[in-house]
């Protein structure tokens, strides 16, 4: 493992290359294999995923643990996590010495790719809308506006490997007709400014808006003109994928999903549409809920764990709820034959105990395991696409597993304010208080 030292960044970012390899002609026409390369970073075989960070860290995992025990291709970093001080001065991250401030500041292993987006994924809904020059963001100290000018300035200084252009996305609200008209125009204008910056060494991914194709037709058409300057597409809605003309240069760009897939089935659907790289919020949701993900593609080699539903058909759960006391004395790993750190060194009993005792290590071990399960999932998907069996394998997977992740039954780690917005007065607490009996009756 190597950890970020100041690295030579001059030729790094613009060195992003993406090669689509064979197998396109097989089965599902649009699922594709590729390789994303950035000088100084590990190559990523796609389809694959990036970890989602919070304030620059993958929740629960110290940088040494990420480097040693997880294998994501890169890390999604939200600018809004770093600039709460922008209203009173220069945010500290702008003063980080060296050529790769984002890597240096967050202590990420040098082999990892950094992807900078303006907002977290999922993003907290802002009470005020975006303007022609700026979007609303949610920092740890409250809402702010982030102008495109400022965003370009951050990009020039922070040198992320990949940067997603500022997009006029109405998080959480349904845009009206007039707003939809503006979205494409604003986003195109902001992207043009970002691409015009001479100091940006990062690979720019153009955002694709979560509105109908015809509503952003002009913007998407104009992307062709930038095709030599943009290095990828970032989809806020994966359903736009089939609308990208296969014949243009834009179709050869890597595609990143910000569409927040809710299950592995949804990931498969997006891959079948031609998605290459994912950000997957459900990994973190499962970890916080105390759920150990437990699925393989297309199905486990041993089918001993299939649960009968009683009517002849069998579907297996996508995860194991580790809060359940049925695990309290189990020395089994979280998933049979899983080779992650949590499964090889520890067992269900310990993780059940840690959750029940609210010890932080419980969530750390689940996070390691859940990342590992997704890494394996993608590696088998790539194998399947390569062998031309992807379509059939997706059907097997759909038959074998339940459609949604199991419900959360226990409690999560303490909720911090900055990633959630309160819903107003009288909101119920996320976690139950501990027992507060009256000791005086002793």
């Amino acid at each position, binding site marked *: 493992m190597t950890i970020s030292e100041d690295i030579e960044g001059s030729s790094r970012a613009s060195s992003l290359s993406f090669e689509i390899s064979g197998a396109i002609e097989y089965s599902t026409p649009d699922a594709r294999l590729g390789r994303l390369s950035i000088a100084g970073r590990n190559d990523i075989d796609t389809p694959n995923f990036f970890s989602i960070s919070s304030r620059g860290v993958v*929740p629960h995992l110290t940088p*040494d643990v990420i480097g040693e025990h997880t294998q994501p291709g890169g890390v999604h970093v939200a600018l809004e996590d770093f600039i709460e001080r922008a209203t009173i001065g220069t945010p500290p991250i702008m003063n980080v010495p060296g050529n790769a401030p984002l890597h240096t500041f967050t202590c990420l292993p040098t082999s990892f790719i950094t992807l900078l987006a303006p907002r977290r994924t999922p993003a907290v809904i802002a009470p005020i809308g975006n303007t022609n020059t700026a979007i609303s963001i949610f920092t740890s100290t409250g809402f702010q506006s982030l102008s495109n000018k400022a965003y370009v300035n951050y990009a020039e200084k922070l040198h992320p490997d990949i940067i997603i252009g500022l997009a006029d996305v109405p998080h959480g609200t349904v845009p009206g007709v007039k707003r939809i008209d503006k979205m494409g125009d604003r986003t195109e204008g902001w992207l043009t400014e970002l691409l015009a910056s001479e100091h940006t060494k990062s690979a720019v991914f153009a955002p694709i808006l979560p509105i109908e194709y015809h509503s952003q037709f002009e913007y998407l058409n104009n992307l062709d003109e930038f095709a030599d300057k943009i290095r990828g597409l970032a989809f806020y809605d994966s359903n736009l994928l089939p609308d990208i003309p296969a014949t243009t240069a834009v179709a050869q760009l890597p595609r990143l999903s910000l569409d927040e897939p809710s299950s592995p089935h949804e990931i498969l659907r997006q891959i079948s549409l031609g998605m290459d790289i994912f950000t997957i919020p459900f990994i973190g949701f499962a970890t916080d809920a105390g759920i150990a993900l437990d699925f393989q593609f297309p199905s486990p080699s041993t089918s001993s764990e299939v649960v009968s539903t009683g009517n002849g058909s069998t579907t297996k759960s996508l995860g194991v709820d580790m809060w359940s006391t049925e695990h309290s004395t189990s020395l089994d790993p979280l998933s049979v034959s899983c080779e992650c750190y949590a499964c090889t060194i520890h067992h269900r009993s*310990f993780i059940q105990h840690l959750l029940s*005792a609210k010890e932080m290590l419980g969530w750390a071990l689940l996070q390691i395991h859940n990342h590992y399960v997704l890494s394996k999932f993608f590696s088998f998907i790539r194998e399947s696409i390569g062998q031309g069996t992807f379509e059939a394998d997706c059907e097997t997977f759909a038959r074998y597993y339940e459609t949604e992740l199991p419900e959360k039954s226990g409690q999560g780690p303490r909720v911090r304010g*900055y990633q959630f917005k309160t819903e107003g007065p009288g909101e119920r607490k996320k976690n139950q208080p501990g*027992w507060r009996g009256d000791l005086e009756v*002793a």
Partner: protein
Amino acid sequence: MSTFTPAPMPSALTFELDARCSTTKARAATLTLPHGPVQLPLFMPVATQASLKGLTPEQLEATGCRLCLNNTYHLGLKPGQEVLEKVGGAHKLQGWKHNLLTDSGGFQMVSLLKLANITEDGVRFLSPHDGSPMLLTPEHSISLQNTIGSDIIMQLDDVLVTTSPDAARMREAMLRSVRWLDRCIAAHANPTTQNLFCIIQGGLDLEMRKECCEEMVARNTPGIAIGGLSGGEAKADYCKVVNTCTGLLPELKPRYVMGIGYPEDLVVSVALGADMFDCVWPTRTARFGNAITKHGVLNLRNAKYASDFGPLEDGCDCLCCRRGDGGLNVTRAFINHIAGKETVGAHLLTMHNVWYQLELMRNVRKAIIEDRYPEFLKQFFKDLHTDKAKYPVWTVDALRMVGVDLME
């Protein structure tokens, strides 16, 4: 009670004295326990509920830790004796290959349960989880610790805050602790694989401490703890108790002062002849955003560190601070950015603080072996306080008792 003759007691440890300071009472020793040797003097971090506050056992091992604590009281409630029995003990539960020490649960009676009711039988208290009445007896405590399988187990003692003005109750607690030790010895099922330590009680009354030392030493346990301290007493009184007890304890047994962890307390207590210490302070203060350094504790949540891109401590060799060789290059600014917001901030500071404590004791040991512990002490206080006028009076006085004058 003075006519007590001890039954020969098996021991699952060996204690080798490696060096002695020619000025102070400090000693360096090697203690070999069932899960390997540890070097004394030693600080033991506290993994209360079978986990060191977010660190993997691998990360704890990387700090050099080979002996850490678990709390019997907590493990008895969660996951409970039945689970521990089925899993095969606490080592197996937490994936820890090295040594464990468990306390008896007695201290939690004072620290967590203000209204616990202590009788000759044991301690009666209400479960903090559901309020159901529970009774912790010496036999039950030992049985739990036998199930946990820790390398060092502690007797159940009658703990009273040292500052208690009730001398009669203090004496009762001391005598009861001796009686409970006998019950613990009788109940101990694994004397050849687990080492039972007695705990000297007696508050701040030196005569009572002497009496207790005599009684406890006569029981010939493999190791001896000095208990009931770090409960808010004056530091000068603390030092007198430790100094008195170490003077009465056998040379060739480990001496463990319970609940001590501030760096100043550690180096002074070592000079007074103590070998082993534990405290939750380094890991707890880490969760509050504090980094321990040789120049004092830094509260990294303070805005002045927001743009401080230096390491937590210059020259520190912990995983966070180390430059190169797999070091993470964690900066004060980064901790400021995540402290109190992402638990990773606490994990990183926990690693640093545990490393600081263990490294301090490694350096203490080295100084004792090279017979320059008085010089070490002088440098330590110089680094910490810069100005001699700021040295705490109690440290100066305590070290004078063992022949070191910090003011020289």
